[in-house]
């Protein structure tokens, strides 16, 4: 249904894509459904005199193809329920995809066993949204940081591990002398630094950050964003950065992927996206950022309700709220097409109506 025409024709989507050394992570035809119906007893329904088994799914991701190039910061933006966090969690192997493939540095990783995945675990790490839940409340900071290091480097002696912990703590701006403290003794911003330190402790090359600053105060957001940028420059990191905040995207991203209801609508370099947003949804999203300056254009008002991912609309997922929707949009699912250096999935754009 969704042609993965980024690098290859559709029929090759299931085979391993030819590995391009500049691509670190590639996602092919990713789909994820969550079963809503509970166990099999709860699935039984009695209707019209017959006992039937009914299953309902949340369609969180509906065919996403995405490549993350080495050294870039790819931001995935979208509103709540668009599946952006599910993409992050699927990439990290926290949930397994219903369909599709995930390749890391040329190797397919989505079917690997927990044991076979271990070498990849230290190359890809994750930073979480909630600094109050992402650190184990019963562990001291030293233990939180030591555990991954000793686990992935069993040969290191105690002194080496200590050195590594100190190094990684100072690199995120936490005084190593505080290592004997517990997470609750730190402020939100400091906890997020420790969370970043934990991810950096195993020297990864790829970091998935799932809304890492949305739980933080404005002045602290800047500190954490700067820290992430510094770490990227110092260690040559690649980021997959999930956020709903377009102002952050404009600042942090090199490339932006806009998602709506589990589907990619637009994929473009940052400057292109912010100067010439092409997809009607991207345009609405950009116009809705609360700007400080006066004299900004009034936000594009979208009509209609956001559909639930349980009953996906037919055709283009955005047609219910799109001012340019036609009959074709209600039937055909648009494919990503290239326009300049952007890739957009929109019939109106393709037909030149936009």
């Amino acid at each position, binding site marked *: 249904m969704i042609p993965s025409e980024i690098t290859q024709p559709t029929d090759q989507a299931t085979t391993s894509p030819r590995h391009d050394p500049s691509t670190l992570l590639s996602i092919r035809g990713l789909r994820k459904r969550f079963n809503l119906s509970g166990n099999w007893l709860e699935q039984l329904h009695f209707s019209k005199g017959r006992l039937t088994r009914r299953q309902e799914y949340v369609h969180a991701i509906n065919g996403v193809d995405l490549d993350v190039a080495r050294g870039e910061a790819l931001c995935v933006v979208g509103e709540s329920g668009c599946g952006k966090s599910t993409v992050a969690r699927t990439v990290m192997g926290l949930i397994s995809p219903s369909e599709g493939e995930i390749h890391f540095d040329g190797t397919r990783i989505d079917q690997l066993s927990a044991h076979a995945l271990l070498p990849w675990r230290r190359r890809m790490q994750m930073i979480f949204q909630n600094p109050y839940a992402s650190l184990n409340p019963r562990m001291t900071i030293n233990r939180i940081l030591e555990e991954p290091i000793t686990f992935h480097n069993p040969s290191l002696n105690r002194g080496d591990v200590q050195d590594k912990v100190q190094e990684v703590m100072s690199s995120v701006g936490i005084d190593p002398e505080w290592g004997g403290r517990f997470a609750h003794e730190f402020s939100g911003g*400091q906890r997020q630094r420790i969370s970043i330190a934990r991810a950096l402790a195993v020297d990864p090359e790829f970091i998935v950050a799932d809304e890492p600053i949305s739980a933080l105060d*404005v002045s*602290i957001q*800047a500190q954490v964003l700067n820290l992430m940028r510094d770490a990227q420059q110092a260690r040559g990191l690649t980021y997959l950065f999930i956020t709903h905040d377009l102002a952050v995207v*404009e600042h942090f991203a090199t490339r932006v992927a806009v998602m709506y209801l589990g589907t990619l609508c637009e994929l473009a370099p940052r400057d292109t996206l*912010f100067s010439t947003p092409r997809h009607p949804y991207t345009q609405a*999203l950009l116009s809705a950022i609360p700007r*400080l300056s006066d004299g900004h254009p009034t*936000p594009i*008002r979208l009509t209609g309700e956001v559909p639930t991912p349980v009953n996906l609309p037919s055709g283009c997922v955005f047609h219910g709220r799109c001012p340019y929707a036609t009959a074709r949009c209600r039937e055909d699912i648009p494919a990503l097409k290239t326009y300049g250096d952007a890739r957009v999935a929109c019939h109106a754009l393709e037909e030149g109506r936009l």
Partner: protein
Amino acid sequence: MALLDVRQLDVRFSSRGKAVQALRGIDFSLERGERLGIVGESGAGKSVAAFSILNLIAHPGFIAGGEITFDGHHLNRMSERQLRKIRGDRIAMIFQDPMMTLNPVLTLGAQMIECLKAHRRISTREARQIALDKLNLVQIPSPERRLDQYPHELSGGMRQRIIIAIALLLDPDLIIADEPTTALDVTIQAEIMALLTELCDTQNVALMLITHDLGVVSQVTRRTLVMYAGRIIEQGPTREIINDPQHPYTQGLLDALPQMATPGERLNQIPGAMPSLNNIPPGCAFNPRCTFATERCTREVPHFVSTGGTQVACHMVEAMLAKEKAHDTV
């Protein structure tokens, strides 16, 4: 006379037998139909300020001093019964989470009618008509049907519209909105903010908007208070504060926003974090994080000085103004 006048409000929270000060004597007032923004980071005391106006501070907290006057009534000297009449009727409140206001087991119609009948002597039929009018006012599609729906059948944006309709039910003079759009998506947030602004103008309702988002404040409000560690540190017309902030904290807060930076560059960060309530530094509470701090800032609490339309509590600004004045007189 101002609609709402708050003088020297002092709110404390007791914890393990000791009281910490959440609001350390704040003064502000609000005119009829005015839209006022209160901004600050978490721990600044902005929500406490809003909650204390209706005496909704929960148990370990209490109002230790100060005067809250609303339309001639001294709210903090009222009995709970008198206060209940003001609440909802003259002052309505909108929370961040709509489900704090909505009862999940009652239909929206039932809740709106109950609310009306509690404050007005009217029939169910009349109450239903008023509820419908208000739903139309907040531009909800097919309002008739909504009255028979339960809160969980609606999306987040729709719920927040319902909350606004409920807030408007009794034609209040003041709406206090505590982070009303923080839980919403940007596109929905833009709609709700536009709606709230429009309704305040057409219905002549004053709005007190509590938020951490300077973008929202800049789009909705006319006047802004900036709070830090339980005090107001800067207040004045919103545009002046956004375009020409005087206090180093306000400047830092605005500079730290990603939209103020050149894309791809480092953001201008304020070092450190807001102090916790039981550990507020003496003098100006911002002094440990302030690049302009002098010895005086660690000793003396700054008082408001006026510059243009804004009032700023900062020794540095005061000194600068004094120098300018001296220069002018020479």
